[in-house]
């Protein structure tokens, strides 16, 4: 069960994180905390970090480095126009999938 959840999340976490960033810019830890608040309790911080790195590489976010009292500067991520487009596409794909799967589920009953 846990494994299945991990696999399913893998395909959607990117969209979920972009959705969080569409509300306001945030840094890694804030995003992890926000995910946990919303019930994704088992998400590892490193997973979120790896994902942020990926969306940065793909050009969906702008990154600003903010100096911190201790440790390296914190990277603050904000959704840019390209990320916004990608997020809209994510919601379309998601709606399509959710609707189809729900139909299958209803047919089963």
């Amino acid at each position, binding site marked *: 069960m*846990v494994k299945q959840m*991990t696999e399913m999340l893998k395909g959607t976490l990117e969209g979920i994180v972009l959705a969080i960033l569409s509300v306001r810019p945030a840094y*890694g*830890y804030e995003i992890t905390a926000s995910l946990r608040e919303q019930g994704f309790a*088992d*998400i*590892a*911080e*490193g*997973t979120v*970090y*790896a*994902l942020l*790195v*990926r969306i940065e*590489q*793909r050009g969906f976010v702008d990154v600003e480095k903010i100096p*911190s009292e*201790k*440790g*390296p500067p*914190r*990277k603050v991520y904000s959704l840019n126009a390209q990320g916004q487009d990608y997020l809209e596409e994510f919601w379309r794909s998601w709606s399509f999938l959710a609707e189809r799967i729900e139909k299958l589920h209803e047919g089963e009953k």
Partner: protein
Amino acid sequence: MAAKWVETLTGSLEQKKQYKQYKARIGALPEPYGSVAKALQRYFLYYGGVTDGETALTMLGDFADLWERAAADGTPVREIVGDDPVEFAETFAQAYTGTQWIDKERARLTKAIEDAERGHRNDSGDTDPGAGPGEAYKELNV
């Protein structure tokens, strides 16, 4: 004219310098972060992936940022890597889409399928029916 040559040389020196800096950052991490970072770094080497120096350095720089941040905040190691360190290591490495050793083979596989499709459609005798699998492999090695 010599400028390009010099640039290539200094470029690689610059990369060496950056790599040294990265090693020093990882070396300076307190425990258990240092051991964890080194174990992951070892896995990256075996897992392969990135082959161009620039991308590799970006990846290692981000990797050092992650562990310095974790050490500064005192975040438990398990909270960073999660239940499955392998999963974490691979997800992290996959984020860097620079040139990978597998790219050449990916292109070759795609092309081989396209060629086979085309050969089939035109019904041209591209493939020798008498050729065994050994022959096919030999052909691929050209």
